[in-house]
Structures are given as C-alpha cells and as structure tokens.
C-alpha cells in the first residue's frame, strides 16, 4: 500500500474519536511508518481534534514513539542492573561495532536503529532486548546474543521459571498461555453474580486483608468501598499492568500465564464498584502479554464471561486494552489516567484521589495485576483462607521476582513471613558466589546487607528494617558486583524516567545522576549533596516516583558509606 493510502486507512478508523484515542492512533502510525512525521501529525490533529503542538508533546514524552525517522528494525538493549550483570553492555557495544554506529543512532542504509532501554521486565531472561520491525510491531527477546539480535528474531520464550507450588495460581505455571478450557468457567464471578451483592463482595475482600501489590500496599477492599460510595453514575476500573520497576516482572508472568485469572479479577472489581468499563493498561514493552490478553478477552466475550448481560445477569463489562509507550511514570495511577486520556503522562496532584476523581474525572478503582488476580481465589475459598496465609498485616500469598546473582531467577509465590535467607536458599537455589547486598523493591527500593537477610518477608518487617517490600523485586548482588555501577544505573534510570513536572524530581534526578557518574572520584561534599537531593525529592516531589528516586542511593549512603568516600 502507498504511504498516503496506508495513512488514510489508519486514520479512517479514528475519525470522530476524541483525544483518548491519541495513544492507540500514534501506536498504529509508529508501527506502520517507524516514526510519526509532521504531515501525519497535522492530519491526525484534524482527525482527533487535538492541537498539533499537543500531539508533538505527547510523542516526545513516550520513548517508544519517534518523531524522526528510525531504522526498519529497532533494537533496544536493556541497561538496568540485572541485565548488566548478565553482560548486556558488551552485547550493546559489539552490536554497535558490527553495525558501525554509536548507540541511539541509525545505520546509513536505514536498516537498524540501536537504543539503550530501561528495564524490560525480563530480568529472569537477562540479558533482554525489545525489538520492533516496521509494520510488524514489538517483540521481547530473552537471553540475547549479538547474532540473535541481528538474526531473524525467532527465539521466543515461554518458560515458567520459579516455584511449582502456588496457591494463588492454583497450580504450577503452565508451559503455555492458559485458555478457558484450562481455566474453566469464571466460577468466582458466577458465585458473586448469583449470590453476593457488591457490598458483600467488598466486605469479603476487606475481610481477607488484601493490600495492593503494586508497591503502595493500600487496602484493596477500602479502595473499592470508596469508589463504590463516590458520587456519580459512571465509574471505571483500571488494571495497572504498567509494570516497570527495575527487577520486577511478576505481572508479566501473571499476564502471560494466567490471563483469565486477571480478567476474572477485573470483572469482580467492576462488579464491586459498579463499573461497566475497565481499562487494562499494559506497558508497551510487554507485547506478548498484550497479545495473550487480547485473545483471552475475545475468548471470554465469546463465552459471555465478559460483555453485556454476563452469565444472564444484568451486569455488563467491556475490557479495553491500552498499550503504554515507554514511560515508567505511567505506573503512577494518575499519570496512567493521563496516558489513557491521550496526554503526556504527568502525575496529578492529590487530593482529589482516584476513588472520587480518577480516569476522565470519574471515580476509579485502579489496581495492580497481582492484586486483581488475588480476588477470584478469595471469593472461591473465602476471606479466612486468604487471611490465614502470611501475617496479620501481610495477608495472602505474594509473588516475588528474583534476579541477579541467584541460581534460579524467576517469579516465586511465597507465604509472607518466610525469611529472605530461607527464600534465597530454599526457593531460588541459593546466591551465586558470596552475597554482597540485596536490593529490595527495585530502583525505588533499598539495600539489605548480608547480615540483615534473616528479615521475614512481610510488608511490616521490611518496613521496620528500614527497607521495603515494594513491588516484590529482589535483586541479588554477589561480591563481584560493582555497587557503584549499580547506583549509576539507578541514577540514570530515574534521570531518564522523571516526567519533568515538579522541580525537585526534574532537577534532583539529573543532579543525582551527575554525582553518581563521578562516584569513582567524588568531589568534596558529594555525599552531603546526594543526601540533600535525596531528601528534597523524597519530601517535596509531587508523586511516588520522586518520593522514591533517592531511596536506593540514601540507603547505600547508610549501608555502604565506603562507596562514597573521598580520596585521602
């Protein structure tokens, strides 16, 4: 098809739609043309009635969109800690040598563009890459080599690493995406629709003690109650699958292996809060999960498990998938709403909170993938079953993503209360080499020393130990790891991912990264600079990204002061 005909056919489907169709439209243009040109922006502007300048601003916010030409194939190699330990830097270097270009450039023949990427959520298959082929879209590649990256990109993955005993998942992680034939009817949803009023469902979830699995640990039932009780007829459920915290990949595994469990959880949430529409926002770096969920939604709709009049009731639900486009900040729920609304992913000021003023200004229950996946088993087995697992303040089974210097990286389900030491030794096959440090909670988390790993893995015990469970990321570093290098990568990550809205984070992530780059030869006063920058981001930023952007560095200042020592 000629370019103009191709453009016309893409835009035809968007005519009459509003600004909230902007990201889907930009994705189609990006996939078809490799970048989005000024004339295309002009036509899209007329089509969606969004100002050209705004569209340009949106393209520049999301790193998977390009406003200048790219190669027919785009290769992005992860540059975050777990992939770095697995040799990602050497792969990127050799790739650039073979193609005779620097990183973040395109070959003269227009065939390849090579870029750095923040964490791709493939730490269990490090080193990982995300590749895009003009016209075909994205693909995540596991355990990459230079030859594989320059080859035909055939090497798919579908291996379930980790635990074989799982209460939440009801069985070991299967070797293929689960279909309805494996998963069965949405029994918990049927149970709710036939025998539980929404208020009773909310009470059951409250009684279970379930708290959010995305990092903030807010009580799920309470969030639903606030949303249900908020004024207004239109309400939304948003499933936050923008999992982007370095070292975290549990939601990817859940989405790829248990799509119907997640969908049933979404349906239960919608029934509880009174929503008829749910958005499933999946990060753009998860093409496989996106395809699996799209197929699962179609399958569920065909079986009347989603759609109108579900199972003969008067409850109806549409689930729409939205793809992120490369922005860690969109894991912050209000930034995620802005992305769905077709804007730059800036976090909003709170209050008002999403439960009263969320997506499109309507009451919204935004929940993490793992949180929603916990709901069907709670309904089927009862709140007391869930509450009986773990501790009083960390009820229910919890998924943990383990990567780095560990014998068996992967996603494991644990009963909270298990110590980190036993977890690493008994579940994960033990640390490879001599343990130096564990980074809990990803780049936004904090370090534990070898002497501290007898801490029980619960939200409250980790908090008391000055650490965090966060999103359940555990990154293991042995004595050969260069912690200064780890910190530099953390610094670059936040410098790259700050949205730029508030001054403390916009400036602080830049200043922090600059100081971390010179850790080998620090200037006098650098440790104090890092502390002042870290505390200012923590105390004065708008959102959770800024509040945690200095955490890992400040915890290293406390636990590894030698890393920051000045000469002499």
């Amino acid at each position, binding site marked *: 098809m000629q370019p103009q005909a191709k453009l016309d056919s893409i835009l035809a489907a968007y005519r009459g739609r509003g600004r909230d169709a902007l990201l889907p439209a930009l994705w189609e243009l990006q996939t078809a043309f490799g970048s989005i040109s000024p004339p295309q922006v002009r036509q899209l502007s007329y089509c969606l009635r969004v100002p050209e300048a705004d569209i340009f601003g949106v393209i520049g916010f999301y790193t998977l969109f390009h406003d200048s030409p790219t190669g027919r194939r785009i290769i992005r190699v992860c540059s975050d800690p777990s992939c770095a330990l697995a040799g990602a830097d050497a792969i990127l270097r050799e790739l650039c040598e073979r193609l005779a270009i620097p990183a973040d450039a395109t070959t003269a023949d227009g065939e390849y563009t090579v870029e750095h990427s923040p964490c791709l959520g493939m730490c269990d298959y490090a080193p990982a890459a995300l590749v895009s082929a003009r016209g075909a879209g994205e693909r995540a590649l596991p355990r990459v080599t230079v030859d594989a990256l320059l080859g035909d990109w055939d090497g798919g993955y579908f291996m379930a690493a980790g635990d074989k005993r799982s209460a939440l998942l009801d069985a070991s992680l299967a070797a293929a995406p689960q279909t309805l034939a494996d998963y069965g009817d949405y029994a918990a949803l049927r149970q709710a629709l036939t025998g539980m009023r929404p208020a009773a469902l909310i009470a059951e979830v409250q009684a279970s003690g379930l708290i959010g699995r995305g990092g903030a640990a807010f009580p799920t039932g309470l969030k639903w109650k606030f949303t249900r009780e908020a004024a207004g007829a239109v309400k939304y459920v948003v499933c936050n699958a923008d999992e982007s915290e370095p070292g975290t990949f549990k939601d990817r595994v859940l989405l790829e292996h248990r799509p119907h469990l997640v969908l049933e959880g979404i349906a239960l949430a919608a029934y509880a809060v009174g929503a008829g529409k749910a958005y499933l926002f999946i990060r753009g770096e998860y093409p496989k999960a996106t395809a699996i969920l799209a197929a699962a939604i179609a399958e569920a709709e065909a079986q009347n498990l989603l759609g109108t009049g579900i199972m003969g009731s008067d409850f109806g639900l549409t689930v729409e998938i939205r793809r992120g486009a490369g922005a860690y900040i969109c894991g912050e729920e209000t930034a995620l709403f802005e992305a769905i609304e077709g804007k730059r992913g800036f976090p909003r000021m709170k209050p008002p909170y999403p439960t009263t003023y969320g997506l499109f200004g309507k009451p919204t229950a935004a929940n993490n993938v793992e949180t929603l996946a916990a709901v069907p088993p709670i309904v089927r087995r009862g709140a007391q079953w869930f509450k009986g697992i773990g501790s009083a303040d960390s009820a229910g089974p919890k998924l943990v993503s383990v990567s780095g210097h560990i014998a068996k990286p992967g996603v494991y389900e644990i009963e909270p209360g298990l110590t980190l030491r036993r977890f690493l030794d008994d579940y994960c096959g033990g640390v490879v080499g001599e343990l130096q440090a564990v980074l809990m909670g990803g780049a936004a988390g904090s370090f534990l020393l070898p002497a501290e790993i007898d801490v029980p893995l619960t939200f409250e015990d980790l908090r008391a130990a000055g650490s965090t469970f966060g999103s359940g990321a555990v990154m293991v570093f042995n004595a050969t790891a260069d912690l200064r290098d780890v910190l530099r990568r953390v610094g670059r990550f936040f410098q790259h991912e700050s949205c730029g809205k508030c*001054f403390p984070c916009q400036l602080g992530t830049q200043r922090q990264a600059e100081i971390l780059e010179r850790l080998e030869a620090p*200037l006098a006063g650098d440790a104090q600079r890092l502390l002042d920058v870290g505390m200012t981001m923590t105390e004065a930023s708008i959102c959770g990204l800024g509040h945690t952007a200095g955490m890992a560095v400040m915890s290293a200042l406390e636990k590894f002061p030698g890393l920051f020592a000045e000469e002499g």
Partner: protein
Amino acid sequence: MTNNSITLTIDGQPITVPSGATLLEAAAAAGIDIPVICYHEATSPNGLCRVCVVDVDGGRVLQPACVAECQADSHVETGNERVERSRRTILEMLNASVNLRQAPEIQAMMRALAADASRFPDARRRESELIDDNPFYVRDYEQCVLCWRCVQVCAEDAQFTFALTLKNRGHDTSVATAFDISMTESPCVFCGQCLGVCPTGALKPKMEWGMEQGWTAEELRKNTRRGRKRRADGE
C-alpha cells in the same frame, strides 16, 4: 465561628480562614511570606516548583502551600529545617541548570535562604540558542524555569491558541512549538499573554531585547512589529 471557617496554627500563630482556603492564602492573611515561582493568580496552579512547601503536622512529605487546603486544627511550619532544606536545595539545583540572571525574585529567594549558587559544580545546564523568529518577541529558553505559565495561557487558561507545548521529558523538557516550527508558522496570534506571565527573562518583547542589544533606532524600527507595519503601509 461559622461552619464555613476553620482554625489552624501557622508558625505558632492561630488563624481562622474560610474553609477551602489554601495554606498560601492563610499564610498571607497571617502576614507570613511564602516564596513561590510557578504560582500566578491568573493561571491554574499545578504545584510544580515546590519552593512553597510547608510542613503540616510533621507529615511524611511536605505540602505545596499554593494548592494544599488548610486543615482544621493543623499545625503548619513554614520555615523549619525540613522546609528550608527542600527550598534551598531546589533553588541550588535550579540555579545549576538555568540562567537566572534576569530573575531578581528568584535571586532574592536564594539570598534569603543562604543558597549556595555554586553548590552543584559540573552540572549540566539547560543550554539553548536564543530564538528570534518573529517581530514581536524573542525566546531565550536558557532562562526558562519550566513554570508552564506560557503554555497554560496559550491554551485553556486564556487564549485557546495551542501554539506551545512541552517537548521531551525530565531535565530535558523544554517549551516548544510543534516540531520546533517558527512562531510565524505556528498558530500563535501574538497576543503577548505569555510574555506577561513569564517570571524570568525567557520571553521578552523584541523592542526591549533590541534595546538591550544596543540596536539603533533604525534597527529597532526595521526589526520589530512597528517597523514591519510601516513597511506594509507602503514604505
């Protein structure tokens, strides 16, 4: 007191304000000065600059006074150590990135907080060439603090012209037109409202800038709006 008033304490001083008042308004009523950079009474507040942060009841995070509403019986401190560290560090970091030579109000804030102008050596500055692409005003984004006010008045806060946006993100963010086209190619109607709300020397009338450059009367006439109009009139 009526139900529509609340009482709180700011820096030890009890004060009663209408409910819904911001901490900034309450502090002003109590005669307490809180610095602001991005806040402007004519634009929607976004709580960006955070130099107005205050400590409310020793909470985990500080609150932006420009948007945070007063809470009954709360104790607010506008100048304790936490507050001053954040304000001072923000100003020091800002000064390391942005040319503040024509921002006397921000310079005064730095002096008041004893901020160190060279606190962050070897910092990457936001450097850019001055943009002189129309007869009305020049844009010098080296002096831009990213308060967003120009973008806001160009859009829903006043003019609904949408000539401006923010490009890139994080520290690399800058104000821009679509694809960096010139102002004359953009939808700009040269209303001048962006100049009126700019808190630094980033946006400046061409006439003023020309005089700073030492232009002659003839150059001023030729290069600014007035001269162009005359030429159009049949010069």
